[in-house]
Structure formats: C-alpha cells, structure tokens
C-alpha cells in the first residue's frame, strides 16, 4: 500500500516536471507551427541562470528560481528577435525553423560548456530534508516541484483563457489571418509566446537539475520527452500536453518500480507507439478538417 503512494508521489513529481517542459513547446507549436529544437538547451540555461544567481551572486533561492525563469524568458525573446523574426512567413517555415533552432541549440549548449565547464555542479536552488506522512517519505524538493509546476501552469492557463492577451494568443493559433483582421499584432504575439515558453523551460530546467546535477546537455533527455509528450497529446494542444505529461509521469514511475528503472523510457516509448497507431493525430489532437 505504501508503495502505491510512493509511486503516485514520484509519478506526480516526474509528471509535473514533464508538464513544465512540454506545455511551452506545445504552445509554441500551436501558435507558430514552430518546433523549437533549442527547447532543451533553454532548460539548461534556466538551470545555470538559477545556479549563477544563487552561487555567484548569493541571492536567496526563491529569487534565484525567479532568476532562472527570467533567464529562460530572456533567451526566448532573443531567439525571436535574432532568428525567428526573420524567418516568419517564409516558404517551408516549419522545416527551416527546425534546422535553425537546432543550430541555435548547439551554439548555446557550447557557450554554456565554455562558460561553466562540464563539471556536474549541484543545483543550490533546492530544498533539503524529508517529511514522513503516514509511512510515505516525501522530500521537500518534490513538494516544491509540484507547487512550482502547479503555480506556473495554472497561471498560464488562467492567462490563456481569461485575459485579453491570452485570447489574442489563442486566436492567433486558431487562425492567423483572422487575428490580423481583428487588429492583433501577430509578430508581438509570437515574441510573447517565445518568452512564455522560455520561462517555462527555464523553470523546468531548475527543477530537473535539482534532482540530478547541472550539465550543459542536461536538457537533451527532458526535451526528447517533451517532444514525445507533444506528439502523443496532439501537436499544439496545450491542455492535452499537460494531462499527457502527468499521465506519462505516473506510468513511468510505476514501470520503474515494478519492472526496473532502466525500462522506464523504453516502455514509455513503446506505449507511445501503440497510442499513435490507434490515434495518429494524438490523444487530444483533431484530424484537420477543411471547411470554409
């Protein structure tokens, strides 16, 4: 019985991190038809940002966390201003931006390596200690991950559904041309979306590094998972990505406990293949229907 609770708890923690990592990616694809291959590096950048703020500048960890999130947002903005802006609306944008962001990712990862080295630093932005609740051991850090993920994702969901700004983002995602006719500055929307995605990736990076260590390529595996989650959820479905992330986190935790840790990722991927055979458009995606 205790094992079940332990599995649910670690599954939720995993799922919360996956959700943080994938909703930004889903939002970017849903709004701009852009797969950001540098998404994983944005996670590492957020993690190093928080590390730098806490270690070198001695800022309290809560502020350092915000610093890491802000660093992710800044790099999201830079990606738009220096690269994406010039490629929007060009022929074969979806493929070109894939290649361009992959290049940006390699560049940024090497810059991280040059600046911080390959030493696996410990992430100082984390909480120590555990608490024992009804026989289940819970680390403060996994509670912190759950809280941070919940707060950030709830804030994003609120902004997307309840504010004028969020309405404009959703409108742009559904029909770019109609959004223009409504007076929406679509270029500014794209900038804002990349900032939001960068911030969420930064937060995910801080959380991921708190469970292992910092390294310039720490975002690679989480980014692969985030891509898988977006494809399973249905490309561009933001809510679907959040739900799929939690579900896959729980499934992976159960597999790791009952079958073995090394089977976690392969079995999860096998499950994904099965889902996609049954529903090629993803769990929450829709087959495109052309209708005038």
């Amino acid at each position, binding site marked *: 019985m205790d094992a079940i609770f332990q599995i649910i708890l670690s599954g939720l923690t995993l799922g919360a991190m996956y959700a943080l990592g994938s909703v930004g990616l889903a939002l970017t694809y849903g709004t701009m038809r852009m797969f950001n291959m540098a998404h994983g590096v944005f996670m590492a950048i957020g993690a190093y940002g928080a590390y730098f703020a806490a270690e070198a500048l001695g800022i309290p960890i809560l502020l350092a966390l915000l610093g890491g999130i802000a660093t992710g947002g800044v790099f999201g903005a830079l990606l738009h201003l220096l690269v994406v802006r010039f490629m929007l609306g060009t022929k074969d944008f979806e493929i070109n931006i894939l290649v361009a962001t992959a290049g940006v990712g390699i560049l940024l990862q090497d810059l991280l390596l040059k600046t911080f080295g390959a030493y696996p630093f410990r992430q100082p932005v984390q909480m120590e200690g555990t608490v024992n609740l009804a026989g289940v051991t819970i680390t403060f850090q996994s509670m912190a991950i759950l809280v941070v993920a919940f707060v950030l994702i709830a804030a994003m969901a609120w902004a997307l559904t309840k504010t004028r700004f969020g309405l404009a983002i959703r409108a742009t995602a559904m029909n770019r041309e109609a959004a223009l006719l409504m007076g929406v500055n679509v270029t500014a929307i794209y900038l804002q979306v990349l900032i939001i995605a960068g911030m969420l990736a930064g937060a995910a990076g801080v959380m991921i590094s708190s469970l292992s260590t910092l390294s310039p390529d720490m975002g690679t595996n989480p980014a692969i998972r985030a891509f898988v989650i977006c494809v399973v959820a249905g490309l561009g479905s933001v809510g679907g990505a959040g739900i799929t992330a939690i579900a896959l986190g729980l499934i992976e935790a159960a597999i790791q406990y009952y079958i073995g840790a090394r089977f976690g990722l392969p079995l999860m991927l096998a499950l994904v293949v099965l889902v996609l055979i049954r529903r090629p458009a993803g769990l929450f995606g829709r087959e495109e229907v052309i209708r*005038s």
Partner: protein
Amino acid sequence: MSDILSVQNLRSGYGHIRVLHDVSFSLPRSGVSAIIGPNGHGKTTLLRTLSGLNRAWGGDIVFDGKKPPSSPEARARAGLVHVPQGDKLFTEMTVQENLSMGAYSRPKEADFKAGLDAVFGLFPRLAERRDQRVSSLSGGERRMVGIGRGMMADGKLLMIDEPSLGLAPIVIEQVYEALAQLASTGAAILVVEENPSRIENIAQRFFLMDGGHFAWSGDAEALRNSSDIVSTYLGS
C-alpha cells in the same frame, strides 16, 4: 465631409499574375455599396488588398482622409474592418469569445456591452448560443458570428465578402434582412456579392467587377435600367 474610402488605380495580384488592373472608386461615409460580378475576377482580391492582407502593387488608397498604414492589423485598428470570405472564425472559441476578439481593436471609448447588445439585437440566435463553441454551429450561424465579429470592431467601414456564400436560400434571406437592418443605422458598408438581385434592394451603389477592373458602376436606378449590361456579364 470627404469620402470614407477613395481608391485610385489600385493594382495587385498573386505571384506574377496580376489580378487587379487600375481599380478606381470612392465610397461615402454612409450607405451600402456592392461589388458585383462573376467569380474569379478579383472581387475578393480587392477586399484583401484594401484590408492589407494582400500587398498593393501600385495605386493609392485614401481611408478616412489619410493614407492608411500598411499592415493589416494597423488598418483594422484604424477602423477598416474586413469580414473575410468563408468567415475564418476562431472555431475552438465560444460565440462570445469570437465577438470579444472582434472588439480587440474597438476604440477605447466605445462601450463593449452596447456593441454586444447591437449584435445580439440583430442576431438573437447568437445570444442563445453565446457560450457554445463556434465549431458546433450551423453554416448560417457561423456567418452571423462572422458579421457580428466585424460589427464589434465599431469601425468606420465594414467590408463583407460574399455573405451568401455556401448558404441555403432561406438562410441567405435572413442574412440579407440583417444586413438591411444594419444598413438602416447609417453605417458605411461595402458588400461583395456575385448575384446582384440579392442586394439590389439594400445597396445604393453598384460596381461591376470584370477582369480585374470596374466595367460598370451606377446607382440602383441605373442598375434596373441596365439589365442588358448586367445580364451580359452575369448571364442571368
């Protein structure tokens, strides 16, 4: 007062193919004008060029006494409202959210609630369905959302592209009844319509588009007296 829209020698097209050849016309600040003519002769391209979705290759546009900004979003904010062909609604949003998006560029001083009341007054069906997703509506209801969304901008000129496209005859009648009501408020409206008989009782001015320029124009009286010209182009 000057005209709301004045166009001189407007040229535009797609790729290397020129569609509009030196289109010139002007519209007063109130009343309904109609662009009629067969399909594939540039009516939609004209509206898209006016709203900035298509780039003008040459010629001059004067809107509300000024040269309008070049981007479509800035033109919408300036009050040049385009209800596009085929509605282009935000299908995963509710009716009310679509109307809110229509009000995105509504002038700050204009009352949002009053705009909503005007739309629901014209299309009571939308008031019943305000919380439904647009993807669940019928074709006629979608068209109402499209026109209502355009009304919400509270612009200076409302351009509506083929409000009858793809609708059943009885629904077309309802849509045109609503347009007649809207016209009675004195708004400036430009309607594109293939079939002049649908709009001849509503519009005051008619422009016949043929081969990318206006082959004929005149008022309702002239349209009735020139049935031979119109039937030559439209074959009716």
